[in-house]
């Protein structure tokens, strides 16, 4: 996947970086290690017009030093440097421990403290620790430097108190040598293996993994842990206490460094507490309400979030899809989880005047498979009535699902959609041609010649204007030929790699004396006779 085009500027000093950020030429993003920014740019979630690379400022921003009662960490200090610095290990051991858990060794060598803090990902390690420690972020701007307490620096997910044109230059962390501390990270990301684990006869999700430098014992061996359903169990009381503490911590960040009378030393609370407040900016009920009633396409709660038309619960494996503003499908919960989120969602549907109009419909599986790769599951349909739901499913399939758009009418009978959980299977069942060759920007005469040579394939010929790179999925091509004799075509070839349909498809570039253009899998000589194209094309087509 290739980021959208941008202008690249290198800054040799902070002063130069600030001048470049202020310069005209469109919105600028700061590039340091790039391990938060580049993935976002590759996914096209962000498309800055310019990148200002502060990598060369390492001399100015790459240091770790003690100043009075604070440890001052430059923005370009990498996670690796933080994790291995004897100074940090001695003065702020929790920070070293958290940094050692970021990503993996390669990521830690490139990713920087400044980048992680400015990216403000609630799931990242350093923002939570910065909050827990009551750190201060130092930001440089055209008007000079200012200090922002961490509690004010993080505004929302991926949003900070920095204005455009400002640059994070350092973070100042109170030295807490000798403090008692613990860093626990909980991740909802499935970490492989079965997603359910039997525990004392009860089933509960195993997607939660706890790891960190210190582990709390999980109970006696052989004795099942108390159920999470019981409000009186020690586990429930402990998490209720933790949640209460998190709420309080949110109001008073300074509490995180309260004095512990027994130890006579300052104590750091677990950053999970601070992180919870950070994440809790919008709670789960508000997210459900935004999704059901306000057609929200992005919202983030403690255990649910919305991405476009999907509300994802409890990690990845429960979800609600919005088919249209008043038609929803909700994945049936088997086995039941301990949350009431699906009940809350059902209540929200009822409040909107929607009702459950049945479980499953032949079109749900292709839709959900395409949307979130969850095909083989049962779903509850919520709509004003069954006919509305049926109509919405058909619209969704014909407009948004790749394998039906090519031929109207292939929705056909129910048996034709006996969905095999694979798009390839679906295509065979619905009777589409076995191979589609898409040519983009190729002369019509040449395309016609090709069509004669490939009678068993369907040839689709389009101009660049007709076929923007992200739109070709609707044709379900097996092979793309793009005229790459000029920059327009070469750009198109790069762009198609970033779109869902182009990522795994062979793309051939038509060139005049040259090798394959970037992003393509092969070259076809523009002035060669059509016979010379046949063999390379055949080689790229599925058998």
């Amino acid at each position, binding site marked *: *996947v*290739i*980021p*959208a*085009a*941008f*202008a*690249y500027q*290198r800054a040799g000093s902070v002063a130069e970086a600030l001048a470049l950020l202020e310069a005209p030429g469109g919105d600028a993003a700061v*590039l340091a290690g*790039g*391990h938060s920014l*580049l*993935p976002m740019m*590759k996914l096209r979630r962000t498309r800055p017009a310019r*990148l200002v*690379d502060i*990598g060369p400022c390492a001399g100015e921003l790459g240091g770790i030093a003690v100043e009075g009662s604070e440890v001052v960490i430059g923005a370009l200090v990498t996670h690796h440097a933080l994790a291995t610095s004897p100074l940090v290990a001695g003065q702020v051991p929790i920070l070293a421990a958290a940094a050692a858990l970021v*990503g*993996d*060794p*390669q*990521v830690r*060598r*490139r990713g920087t403290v400044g980048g992680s803090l400015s990216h403000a990902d609630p799931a990242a390690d350093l923002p939570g620790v910065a909050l827990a420690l009551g750190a201060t972020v130092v930001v440089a701007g055209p008007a000079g430097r200012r200090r922002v307490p961490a509690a004010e620096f993080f505004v929302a997910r991926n949003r900070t108190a920095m204005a455009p044109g400002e640059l994070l230059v350092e973070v100042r962390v109170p030295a807490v040598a000798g403090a008692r501390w613990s860093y626990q990270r909980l991740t909802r990301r499935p970490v492989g293996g079965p997603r359910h684990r039997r525990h004392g006869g009860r089933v509960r999700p195993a997607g939660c993994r706890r790891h960190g430098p210190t582990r709390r014992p999980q109970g006696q061996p052989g004795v099942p842990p108390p159920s999470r359903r019981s409000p009186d169990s020690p586990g429930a009381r402990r998490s209720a206490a933790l949640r209460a503490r998190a709420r309080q911590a949110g109001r008073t960040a300074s509490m995180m460094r309260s004095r512990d009378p027994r130890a006579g030393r300052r104590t750091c609370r677990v950053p999970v507490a601070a992180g919870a407040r950070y994440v809790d900016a919008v709670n789960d009920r508000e997210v459900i309400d935004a999704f059901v009633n306000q057609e929200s396409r992005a919202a983030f709660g403690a255990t649910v979030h919305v991405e476009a038309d999907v509300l994802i619960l409890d990690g990845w494996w429960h979800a609600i899809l919005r088919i249209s503003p008043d038609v929803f499908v909700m994945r049936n919960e088997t086995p039941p989880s301990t949350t009431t989120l699906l009940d809350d969602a059902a209540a929200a549907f009822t409040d909107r005047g929607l009702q459950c109009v049945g479980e499953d419909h032949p079109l749900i599986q292709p839709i959900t498979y395409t949307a979130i790769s969850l095909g083989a599951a049962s779903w509850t349909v919520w709509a004003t009535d069954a006919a509305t739901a049926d109509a919405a499913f058909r619209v969704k399939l014909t407009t948004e699902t790749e394998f039906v758009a090519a031929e109207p009418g292939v929705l056909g009978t129910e048996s034709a959609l006996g969905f095999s959980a694979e798009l390839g299977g679906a295509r065979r069942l619905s009777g589409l041609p076995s191979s589609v060759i898409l040519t983009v920007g190729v002369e019509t005469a040449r395309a016609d010649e090709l069509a004669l040579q490939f009678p068993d394939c369907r040839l689709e010929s389009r101009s660049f204007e007709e076929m923007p790179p992200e739109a070709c999925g609707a044709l379900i091509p097996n092979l793309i030929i793009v005229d790459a004799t000029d920059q327009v075509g070469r750009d198109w070839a790069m762009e198609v790699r970033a779109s869902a349909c182009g990522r795994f498809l062979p793309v051939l570039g038509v060139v005049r004396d040259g090798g*394959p253009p*970037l992003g393509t899998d092969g070259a076809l000589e523009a002035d060669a006779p059509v016979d010379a194209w046949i063999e390379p094309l055949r080689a790229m087509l599925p058998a």
Partner: protein
Amino acid sequence: VKLRLQVNGAARADDVEPRLLLADYLRDVVGLTGTLVGCDTSSCGACTVLLEGRAVKSCTVLAVQAEGRSVTTIEGLAGPDRLHPVQEAFRACHGLQCGFCTPGMVLAAVSLLAECPQPTEAEVRRGLEGNLCRCTGYHNIVRAVLAAAAASAR
């Protein structure tokens, strides 16, 4: 943008687009296809190369970020007609099956051993946590890295 850097010891100067990733630069411009692109999201480690001797994931580094630096790919780890001790150990210990993850694994291991010449098994496993093997041949990979460490101690 003009890019000057060293690839496997040889100085190069190329005109590249700023958005070109280091992995694509190495594969498509320099022609060193030993650097593989697996997940393209800095998860799998197949694209690992050494930047100034330290392992990085080249699918999440812009080529222009390597300006003035030295890059080592699997092709440049040893000469054309011999194997690096880590490669030798991978061969001896059957540290590969399909081979897709191997260049990244080897380079990550080289970087690990540069920092920690005599790692424990646990340290090897942690040190390679950024590299995925879909054949799940991790046991032999870990053995290979430990064998390479032992060989260098002799």
